[in-house]
């Protein structure tokens, strides 16, 4: 499950089968099986950037990047794409609970909790 740039040089986001299954499940439970999920980087402040990961009810915008996996659609805006290229989205369960994990090769530094990142 390496998350490298594909042969055509297009930016990639890898979604593991497990992550796709949970996303599909959560869209179903939300009652919006055809909605999308927006993945991005929100900017700012003294400490830099944070991940954005939320349901998206609107259609993708013209220059959004669109990824699909097992019937799930993930949307990334072009600016965020620069900082997310090659990221793998996985889903994990553990003692502390469960959730999606982003393995982002562009991240240089991260704060203790991993929520805030810098490039």
């Amino acid at each position, binding site marked *: 499950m390496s998350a490298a740039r594909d042969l055509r040089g297009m930016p990639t986001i890898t979604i593991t089968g497990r992550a796709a299954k949970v*996303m599909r499940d*959560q869209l179903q439970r939300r009652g919006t099986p055809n909605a999308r*999920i*927006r993945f991005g980087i929100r900017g700012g402040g003294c400490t830099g950037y944070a*991940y*954005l*990961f*939320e*349901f*998206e*009810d609107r259609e993708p915008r013209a220059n959004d990047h669109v990824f699909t996996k097992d019937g799930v659609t993930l949307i990334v805006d072009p600016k965020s794409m620069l900082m997310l290229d090659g990221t793998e989205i996985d889903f*994990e369960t*553990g*003692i*502390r*609970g*469960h*959730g*999606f*994990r*982003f*393995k982002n090769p562009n991240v240089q530094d*991260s*704060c*203790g*909790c*991993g*929520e805030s990142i810098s490039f």
Partner: protein
Amino acid sequence: MSTQGPSIHDTGALFQIAEPEERRAPARAPGRGIGIDLGTTNSLVALAPHGDDPKVLADGEGRALLPSVVSYVGDRVIVGDAAQAQQEEAPGQVVSSVKRFMGRGLSDVDFTHPYHLVAPSQGAGVLRLDVGAEGEPHLVTPVEVSAEILRVLRLRAEDALGGPIDGAVITVPAYFDDAQRQATRDAGRIAGLNVYRLLAEPTAAALAYGLDRGGQGLFAVYDLGGGTFDVSVLRLHDGVFQVLATGGDSALGGDDLDRALAAHLLGRAGFDETRPPTRHQRELARIAARAAKEALSEQGEVRVSVAACGIDDLAVTRATFEELIEPLVQRTIRACRAALRDAGVRARELDGVVLVGGSTRVPRVRAAVEETFGRPPLTDIDPDKVVAYGAAIQADILSGSAREGVTLLDVVPLSLGIETMGGIVEKLIPRNATIPIAARQVFTNYSEQQTGMQIHVVQGERELASDCRSLARFELRGIPRLPPSMARVEITFQLDADALLTVTARELMTGVRQSVEVKPTYGLSEEEVDRLVMESYDHASDDYAARNLAEARVELGRVALAVRTALAEVGHLTAILPAEERASIEAALVSADALMREASEAEAVNAARVEIERRSEPFARRRMERALLAGMEGKSLHEIESVLAAEEEHLDERRGGHSAEVIDG
């Protein structure tokens, strides 16, 4: 470095899919935040909705202070005065001063208490109290006991607000360490509270005073609670409450004054090492000592009798009491001087000294504070309530009300660090650092064979880890085999605004990120808290249903009685009550009687009450008109108006609530 640690996960945070901004429900409910002072001896809940002045909520009998006492006698849990009343007969089953056990291990419990303690099975884990009757063990954790107290306060607030509350600010002693704070937060969760914030007690008191006085200046807060002592030095300017330093002792409080006096009483009654008092006798002596302490704040001498200890009309003078407590008072004074030094403030620069806690009523304590700070302390806000007031103000702000913003900059009371080679502590976050704050430090391997690293997180000021509080231990594994000092592991401490710690680690050479599960040494595990929260939901719905049913029965009984009284008095007058109407009302009363006996759900009982009210409303109206007419004959206008007003009040109170006493003929 070889013991088995908990498992390691790959990287940092786990994410959930969030709702987009515009679909998110408003996260707050302005005006529905409550402030709770969870005290060693007494607890309180206060409200200050929408910028109002804070008010402490009283129970049905007008008592604001809820004794922090929980009784497990029989199969019901009782909290407060009623529990306290059972303390003499079953001291081992009635838990008081549970705050002293919060976040503590067996070895920390060096004070006398009447409980049978059960140590956790493997050294770590949470301490339990056996509160069962003889031969019937019933284990509870201090967190659960505290949750019982919080639950009662929550229900009290829900009654006052007429519905669910949004969240709570719970106060903790400033000197509470991470484990004690975590335990308090867990207790809040188990009691069904959304804990907005843990607020340091002296900071809460300063908030209550500061807002009262225009919010400028340098203040010291001397807080002698039931089981804890805190002192904080704060600077207030332009809406910012900046704690400059805090100090204290989380195992010294007003209870110790009682214990010192109790030991003296027992000594005078002839108890010593060769003839030690039973736990029961010790507890009775302590209860008597507390009453004596309170009396000695008002008078110079008190006479004490405790039959079970053979103490009969023993005289204790204030001078004797002051002599007994002097070492304890001096300990608090040393902490005050240290806090001033840490804050870089001289006593004479202060604009005021605030007293908090019931034991600051002791004259010797007041005098010592006055000597130390060179000025008479401020006592115009009730020292028992001032902390709850401050908590309520902060809760109001955090609930999102339009109250003018106040920013509280609090500090961490004790340094946080990691044990390094030789048991020496490397401090990552120093005491009195303003929170939130983060710190990171890189540690290296000492040999190529080392593929794991034992991390021991401690809190305290001492150089050796063994002299500090152990907060957590975990092992990092999967460190690559590298020459000594080449493997590098970065440890990050993040302290949030509640002074609660999160620790993460990552290996820098290979870039492999490891987040670690930090298992609190003396705390409940996440699973245990989750289980208790779930259980409390189950109980909560049971409790709630039972309470609703009981209330519905009372209401139905009240309405039925009022209608029956009215029927007996004027029911025979067909001008007021036509026969078919009377039959209809009586039928409703008969089915109500059946429901009173059999109903198991509040809804059915309430429906029956509403039905009686509906059917009897015309009767009630006609009866009132008649009463008014009858009443007006030969009475002054003033009297008629007051009858009218009284009747309207009754109508407002309960539609169809028939008041027999207005009818006089």
